[in-house]
């Protein structure tokens, strides 16, 4: 007798009084949950296959469906959660390393929600962004340059290359392969329209998207997928990925199932074999080695493009950032431990790294102390969920933010965290043509533009209420923040005063 150890986590609830047997749910669910029972003349569901992506719920024309977490429970135990037990069953069955997707979902403390923003009252009036000009434009790159002029007052110094953003937010690295072509197309169009940038991730740049190069950051990772001269030439900036928040110390592994001919062509790899990009760059063992890659990339592009070095937020991030600021890089990107991914070993995703808030505050402090803060800009990602998170990040010291998960959610992602299966009913983390076609790049771009435009308005309003009229004046302005419900050491690390304490 075959015993099922792992029981379905979700229940498909169908309101029979509303269901009209149109079978749309059956067609929409690539996981094969729904089917029509012709004998009994009604729809049935296989709960075990459901991943709770809500595609069927959102498309059901009569609103007959709901997905609920199962009411079936193991004997309650504050120490042994259902997930902990199920994971043991999975490993006992397979002997495998657990693989998960998207960001760390566990109940760790986070700090964005414990930071409060200041507002002007009476003495220093707020600014109405509808009436007064508000500057949200920022420039990313090295500001470390000695300005020299000739006798006519003309600039003699060659200025370092910079990125100009109309809003201090960019779409973070998500590779073609892990996400679909239509996701990349939507990100590229939106970035262009918004005057910001999207990041290709490490999977190369599809030929059809070279036209968006001025709004594209291309990534160079340990596997060097799709990296060649034209790729570097096409981009506005080049990012060297040393690490990512979801899996610090771990590299990418795109399973062969997601490697279609077009993905293989873009990554410049053989079809049918896995794309493995291990954790270390095997040519980088020191800051000097990193500098060599930074300089190679600059040399390959005539030193016309800023180079970003992306690292995960880890315990020693201060010293690492201090090294990067001296490596010739123009921008440091720090990815917090909540950062998302298409696939990461569960244990790494859920246990490795530190919150980006702490990493950011410490790095900003350290670089200032050492007098090298102007060498680089700082971009942070790893679960920026709203314009308030973005504003707080800037006030803690960031120049701009990366958003990945938030961008995918705006495209319809319901955070079911099944990207690693290669089946995504929303057409995002899949390469199956029928599913990819569900995401219209134009509609996707429109939604992304809406999201960032809304955040821009909110940023302006929040800055206005603080009496600040430019992002520049907000950056590193930690006096505008107060901590609530934090320990002394958390306040010290973040460099903010407790709520209630005056200026």
């Amino acid at each position, binding site marked *: 007798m075959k015993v099922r150890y792992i029981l379905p986590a979700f229940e498909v609830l169908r309101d029979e009084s509303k269901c009209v047997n149109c079978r749309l749910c059956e067609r929409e669910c690539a996981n094969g949950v729904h089917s029509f029972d012709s004998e009994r003349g009604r729809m049935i569901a296989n709960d075990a296959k459901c991943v709770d992506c809500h595609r069927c719920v959102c498309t059901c024309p009569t609103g007959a469906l709901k997905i609920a977490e199962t009411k079936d429970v193991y004997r309650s135990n504050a120490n042994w959660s259902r997930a902990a037990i199920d994971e043991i069953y999975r*490993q006992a069955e*397979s002997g495998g390393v657990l*693989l998960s997707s998207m960001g760390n979902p566990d109940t760790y403390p986070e700090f964005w929600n414990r930071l409060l923003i200041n507002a002007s009252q009476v003495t220093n009036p707020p600014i109405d962004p509808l009436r007064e000009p508000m500057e949200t434009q920022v420039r990313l790159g090295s500001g470390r340059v000695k300005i020299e002029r000739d006798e006519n007052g003309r600039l003699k110094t060659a200025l370092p290359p910079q990125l100009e953003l109309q809003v201090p937010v960019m779409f973070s690295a998500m590779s073609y392969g892990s996400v679909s072509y239509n996701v990349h197309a939507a990100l590229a169009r939106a970035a262009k329209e918004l005057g910001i940038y999207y990041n290709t991730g490490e999977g190369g740049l599809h030929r059809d998207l070279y036209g968006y190069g001025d709004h594209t950051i291309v990534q160079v990772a340990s596997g060097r997928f799709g990296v060649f001269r034209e790729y570097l030439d096409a981009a506005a900036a080049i990012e060297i990925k040393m690490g990512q928040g979801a899996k610090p110390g771990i590299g990418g592994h795109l399973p062969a199932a997601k490697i279609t001919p077009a993905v293989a062509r873009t990554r410049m790899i053989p079809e049918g*074999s896995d794309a493995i990009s291990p954790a270390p760059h095997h040519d980088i063992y020191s800051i000097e080695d990193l500098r060599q890659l930074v300089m*190679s990339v600059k040399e390959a592009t005539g030193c016309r493009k800023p180079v970003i070095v992306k690292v995960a937020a880890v315990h020693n991030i201060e010293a690492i950032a201090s090294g990067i600021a001296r490596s010739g890089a123009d921008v440091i990107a720090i990815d917090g431990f909540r950062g998302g991914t298409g696939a990461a070993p569960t244990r790494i995703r859920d246990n490795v790294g530190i919150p980006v808030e702490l990493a950011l505050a410490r790095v900003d402090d350290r670089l200032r102390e050492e007098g090298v803060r102007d060498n680089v800009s700082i971009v942070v990602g790893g679960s920026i969920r709203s314009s308030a998170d973005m504003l707080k990040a800037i006030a803690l010291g960031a120049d701009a933010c990366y958003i990945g998960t938030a961008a995918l959610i705006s495209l319809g992602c319901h955070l079911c965290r099944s990207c690693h299966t290669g089946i995504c009913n929303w057409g995002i983390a899949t390469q199956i043509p029928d599913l990819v076609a569900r995401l219209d790049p134009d509609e996707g771009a429109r939604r992304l533009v809406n999201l960032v435009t809304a955040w821009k308005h909110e940023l302006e309003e929040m800055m206005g209420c603080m009496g600040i009229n430019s992002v520049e004046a907000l950056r590193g302005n930690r006096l505008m923040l107060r901590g609530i419900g934090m320990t002394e050491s958390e306040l010290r690390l973040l460099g903010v005063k407790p709520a209630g304490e005056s200026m």
Partner: protein
Amino acid sequence: MKINANGYTAKKLNIMIGRSNDESIEIEGVIGQRYIGTALSGKILEIEGAPGNALGAFLDGAKIELFGNAQEATGDTMNAGEIVIHGNAGDATGYAMRGGEIFIEGDVGYRCGIHMKAYRGNSPAIVIGGKAGSFLGEYQAGGTIVVLGDGRAGGAVAGYFCGTGMHGGEIWLRSQDAPAALPEQVKTERVKGVPSNVEMLIKKWCAKFGKEAINYTGDEFLKLSPDDANPYKRLYTPN
């Protein structure tokens, strides 16, 4: 065109190379300049001296012939072209190359040919006359690495952990002894003589360094290849 590199930075050298109308450029007196010939195409460089790291990085079709030893990261992410080294080469030679050929008269350091991958019609190749250090061909996903062990009395011609993470391509070692600590997913075959593609590479190498191909091609080789294109899929279980 002939350049004496003495006193020039690598940046200046690359600008001079780029601006030159000559197809063929000789550079002498090279003393540690890095990044020479980065992403270069359509030119032939003859270099004398001791270039620094990252010679011919992102090379895109140019030919580089070096009379001297190469340092680290020669031919990093090379796309097309040819690098010939009359001497030894340092660590991470041919990192992630996906096209073109590198011929080395002597030995290479650690991590040669890591991440090498084939792509459509391109199949990169590295031929090493002497011996290779540890981690040769790690994560190799395509292409061919040949180690001739020229002038060696016996023993393995590559160091430890050869082919770890290998999931494509081939490594040919002219030796009867397998390198130490070979990973599980790499299978080894003893082959007497080599197939035509490898023979062609050895002949090219011989032509460049004045050797007789017949002294190599008929010998016993150890062929290393992965046992599966996705050797790690069994490692994971969806959660």
